[in-house]
């Protein structure tokens, strides 16, 4: 029980919320509830970031994930009219198989950290996560990937447009709106 004795309260509570929300994401039958729970999870993860001196990351996480990506999800769910508990329940066998696999993964990974050692570098931890530092690194060492991620975005944009574009002789979108 030594694990829980001196554990700081903040970490404990946040972790609890995070895991609870994550579990709800996975188990909720209504996709919209899942999305909302996922947003909550992201909030709590952002809080973790603050505890970890990654303040800028926390903001970005909120803006990108909770603000942009999750809204996109919500939008699509609404567009496709999936805000019902539409998903059929899987058989118990499947649930057991899935939980055993995931559980095994967890056990295998965590079991191996009995003597996990990480590299120590001794930087000034309080300033690491500030915009100033991050900007410096991003514009120097990580300049090339930063520039190249432009290719990723243009590709994703073209791809999404290609898939979403209405074909000339296609009635699909019209049908979609009528349904």
């Amino acid at each position, binding site marked *: 029980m030594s694990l829980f004795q001196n554990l700081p309260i903040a970490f404990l509570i946040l972790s609890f919320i995070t895991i609870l929300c994550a579990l709800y994401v996975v188990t909720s039958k209504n996709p919209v509830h899942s999305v909302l729970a996922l947003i909550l999870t992201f909030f709590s993860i952002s809080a973790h970031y603050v505890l970890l001196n990654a303040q800028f990351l926390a903001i970005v996480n909120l803006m990108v994930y909770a603000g942009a990506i999750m809204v996109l999800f919500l939008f699509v769910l609404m567009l496709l009219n999936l805000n019902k508990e539409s998903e059929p329940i899987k058989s118990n066998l499947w649930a057991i198989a*899935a939980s055993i*696999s995931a559980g095994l993964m967890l056990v295998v990974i965590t079991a191996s950290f009995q003597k996990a050692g990480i590299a120590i570098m001794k930087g000034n931890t309080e300033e690491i996560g500030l915009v100033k530092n991050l900007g410096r690194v991003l514009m120097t060492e990580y300049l090339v990937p930063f520039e190249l991620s432009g290719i990723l975005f243009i590709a994703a944009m073209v791809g999404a447009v290609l898939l979403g574009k209405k074909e000339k002789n296609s009635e699909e979108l019209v049908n979609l709106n009528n349904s």
Partner: protein
Amino acid sequence: MNSIALILGLPLIGFIINGVIGKQLPKIVSGLLGISTILIAFILTASKLSQFVSNESFSESLKLFTFLNVDNLVLEASFKFDRLSIWMTMIITGIGTLIHVYSMAYMWNDEGFHKFFSYLNFFVFNMLMLVLGSNFLMLFFGWEGVGLCSYLLIGFWYSRPEYGKAARKAFIMNRIGDLGLLLGMFLLIHQFGTLDYDGVIEGISQGKTSAGMLTAISMLLFVGAMGKSAQIPLYTWLPDAMAGPTPVSALIHAATMVTAGIYLIVRTQVLFEMAPFTSEFIFWIGLSTSILAALIGLKQNDIKKVLAYSTVSQLGFMFVALGCGAYTTAMFHLTTHAFFKALLFLGAGSVIHGVHHEQDIRLMGGLKSKMPITYITFLIGTLAITGFPFLSGFFSKDEILTHVFEHNKIGYGLMVFSALLTGIYMFRMFFVTFHGSYRNTHFSFDKVHESPMGMTLPLIVLAVLSLIGGALNLPEYLTHQSGILANWLKPILTIEETKHAISHSTEYILIGVAILVFVTALLFTRSKYVSNHHVPKDEESTGVQGYMENKFYVDELYNTIFVKPLEGLSDILGNFFESKVISPLSFGINSVLTKVGKLNRYIQDGNIEKYLLYMVIGVVILIGINLFI
């Protein structure tokens, strides 16, 4: 210009011209082109012979370019004329020319005429590359090339589905042999850092490797030879390969390609000399193949199938000789076999041509009067293979028997038995085909005709060669000196061949035994198939009544001593052993693999969730292996 380049290049040019613009050429030009390239190569090779005669250590080499130079391994595209390779070249180009001439008449009405000639030329090119290459890589190039040509030519008449299958089977079985050869080559690179014949021999003489390693290498090389030269258990492709046109069977599946395994072992005899276990293994494999194939040959009714099994059996003889360390003898039998087996196949082709593409000997008979030239030449071929005294086959087979007698007495007994079987199945086929009465009701006897000049001429030449081929290596007891071939090969055989340790009187006894075997086989089959007009039926056992008329008690004796057990054995081997043991072992693997492949259907069932689950299980296992074991 270097003559090696010309000899190699001419068939290649023939292949390219015929392959690219053959269709536009008139048939006569296309055919003559095919013939002339090989013929010129033959003449060039023959003109080289004199230099070898005058200079014992003469050799000529050609280095085209460096093929590869990686990891300190230098592989060169280089070729070499030495006494062994020129001997093989003579056989290939010589018999190749004859068969090309024959094919011109045989294939004249086939729509794929030019295609056929281009394939044949390509085959000769690859075969020459195989024997002329000065390292294992060039050998392997030729090795695979001839396999590919064999594939193309077996499946030449693709219209029948089973032919395509036979072609694929032949290729796959050859590939299994190639596995051995390739692995052997990798081991050679590993041990000696080179694939040059000279380099390997030098490495062995320097003792760069251990005895166990030599055994491994030689065994692997022999596996390659087994595939190409159709030995147990990789022999079943050869009978199936008879689906191809008959000249192909003569050239590829009798005279040249199948002897590549023999050539490989003679070429690398140093290795095999140092690996007594392998030699012994070769001996027994060769022996059992020769007996098994001969026994199965007893029951075949397809004229080409009989010859095919006979080829397998004769190749077994050659391997027996190799197993005894009698390399010259093996080469000698290879040569004479090339003569008479090419003759027999071409003769069979002539018969098939004459009776309008009928291959079942039960539907022939009495062809003697209609096809005199074919008859006489076929007779000479049969006599040569069965060991009629002083024909080519007699000398070479006798030499093998003598060596086996020295080597292993039990082996000798079995070899004599095998020789007896050879006589029986050959004469059986011969008598049933040419004697007796004509039996095919669908094709009238009047229409049976002798083949044209283009086909009979090669037959005559080959018949003459089969008659006098023995002169190439007359035994010591006749001439009191070693034979031409023995002298010829002596400089390149690094190991001194064992001198005949037995006295002349023993040799005479052995010759007597050989002749006795021949006479027994002749008399037995003659009485059965000529005097009694026995015709093999589907149910051989019901034919027993036919013997009743026979007054000679000898026949009864034969019947109980030989016929019953032999036919029983043949039945067992042909129907049980081959179909239940060998075929599943070699090609039946295919059906096993197919079943295994179909199991995959249960995993790959299209459900993405299962895929994800399998992937996670895979990850878990991977981590588990790494962390807990």
